[in-house]
């Protein structure tokens, strides 16, 4: 056991650096995913004609294909069109685009779960549809979406490990590197796994606290109710 711990201490600095990269990737991807996902959800819910169709096509294409394929198209494929993107931005873009489709569906689900009477009451007060969406629908939808959205946070942190396939030095890639020095694959993977479990538990706790903090009566839900 003591040997194991000494081993962990020796590899920890390298893994820590990888973890930081993983967290940065997931933060970048989540922000990008939110920025694209919310407009997509609005376009799919309230848009008409071509706007709605584009949103549906975007969301369903992304959700219908594996993230690795998306990553490979962006990192290996786009240079064919003269678009060269570095590893880390490529990973963030691929993860972010992937996340945007799922986030869009979470937002859409939340928007659609809001009783139609809310929109009606807002319009009856004289609000335009835009005002109603902004002041009445979205503030509620963003609260409702928090539990499933926080699951997306956890997914993203885990899925950053895919970036290892294009040699981004995140946690998994560091682990593989250490394996090639030490020839102790199981030990290294065990500690990598432990780090993921601990980090994700901490993130889950933080998310729960945030939810508690901003919860208002009538909007209590829990992350565990969504899977």
């Amino acid at each position, binding site marked *: 056991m003591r040997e194991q711990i000494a081993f962990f201490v020796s590899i920890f600095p390298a893994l820590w650096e990888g973890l930081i990269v993983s967290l940065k990737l997931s933060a970048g991807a989540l922000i990008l995913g939110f920025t694209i996902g919310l407009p997509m959800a609005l376009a799919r819910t309230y848009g008409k004609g071509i706007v709605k169709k584009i949103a549906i096509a975007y969301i369903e294409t992304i959700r219908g294909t594996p993230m690795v394929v998306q990553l490979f198209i962006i990192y290996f494929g786009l240079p064919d069109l003269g678009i060269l993107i570095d590893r880390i931005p490529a990973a963030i873009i691929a993860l972010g685009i992937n996340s945007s489709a799922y986030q869009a569906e979470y937002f859409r689900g939340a928007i659609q779960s809001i009783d139609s009477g809310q929109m*009606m009451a807002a319009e009856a007060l*004289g*609000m335009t549809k835009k005002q109603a969406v902004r*002041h*009445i629908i979205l503030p509620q939808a963003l609260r409702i979406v928090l539990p499933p959205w926080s699951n997306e946070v956890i997914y993203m942190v885990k899925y950053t490990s895919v970036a290892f396939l294009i040699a981004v030095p995140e946690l998994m890639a560091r682990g593989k590197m250490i394996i090639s020095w030490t020839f102790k694959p199981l030990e290294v993977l065990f500690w990598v796994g432990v780090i993921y479990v601990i980090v994700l538990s901490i993130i889950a706790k933080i998310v729960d606290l945030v939810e508690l903090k901003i919860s208002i*009566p*009538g909007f209590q839900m829990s992350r565990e109710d969504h899977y």
Partner: protein
Amino acid sequence: MVEPILRIENLYKNFGDVEVLKGVSLTVEEGEVVVIIGPSGTGKSTLLRCINYLTVPDSGDIYFEGRKIEYKQDNLSIVRQKIGMVFQEFNLFNHLTALQNVAIGPSKVKKINKTKALELAEKELLRVGLQDKADHYPAELSGGQKQRVAIARALAMDPKILLFDEPTSALDPELTGEVLMVMKDLALDGMTMMVVSHEMGFAREVSDKIIFLEGGVVSEMGSPEKIFNNPDKERTLEFVSKITRLGPIDSSRGGSDI
């Protein structure tokens, strides 16, 4: 002759194959309280919703304050600001406190500055007797309290007429009294009101005119005395006595509450 505040001419509305309104015409004078009764599914709510174009009628004209509302050209927002609406299911904004619910219309629609809007909201909450619930969220209020907040929300826009769509139907019987009380006070203050309701006590005591809507048309209308005591049509008498006997809230109790 004074132009009525609201005049509806020959209003038609279908939902798919179902003809809901088949040529409804009526007028509401300023300061009048009009109660609309009729069997369920006969288009009472649809009629109210057509007035502020939450439902767009297929044909027919609506004149508000002497001006015809043009669905395509008019800024509906401005019309709706003057026509308040109270819903059966309250539809309070769930993410806002009672006070914020009342203030949001003035602040976002009328662009009144926020402090003033909140002051106004406090005044309106006081009017419905809920100043002490200002910081409560809808989920923390009883049905009767929710409906009173909803009335305050509509009042805060300073409407020329208030539409009530079965305001007490979603309430437990013991909670209807407080809502009817507020409505009665409004009527006494001279508010023009159009109320879809089967609260016969309220209709008898407060209304100036009762409209019996059936089969998508105005079957009969008249003063409460006439409708209750000697209506022109057999059918009206039958319906009124049935509702009075079996109505969701029996009228003697509603009457004594008010």
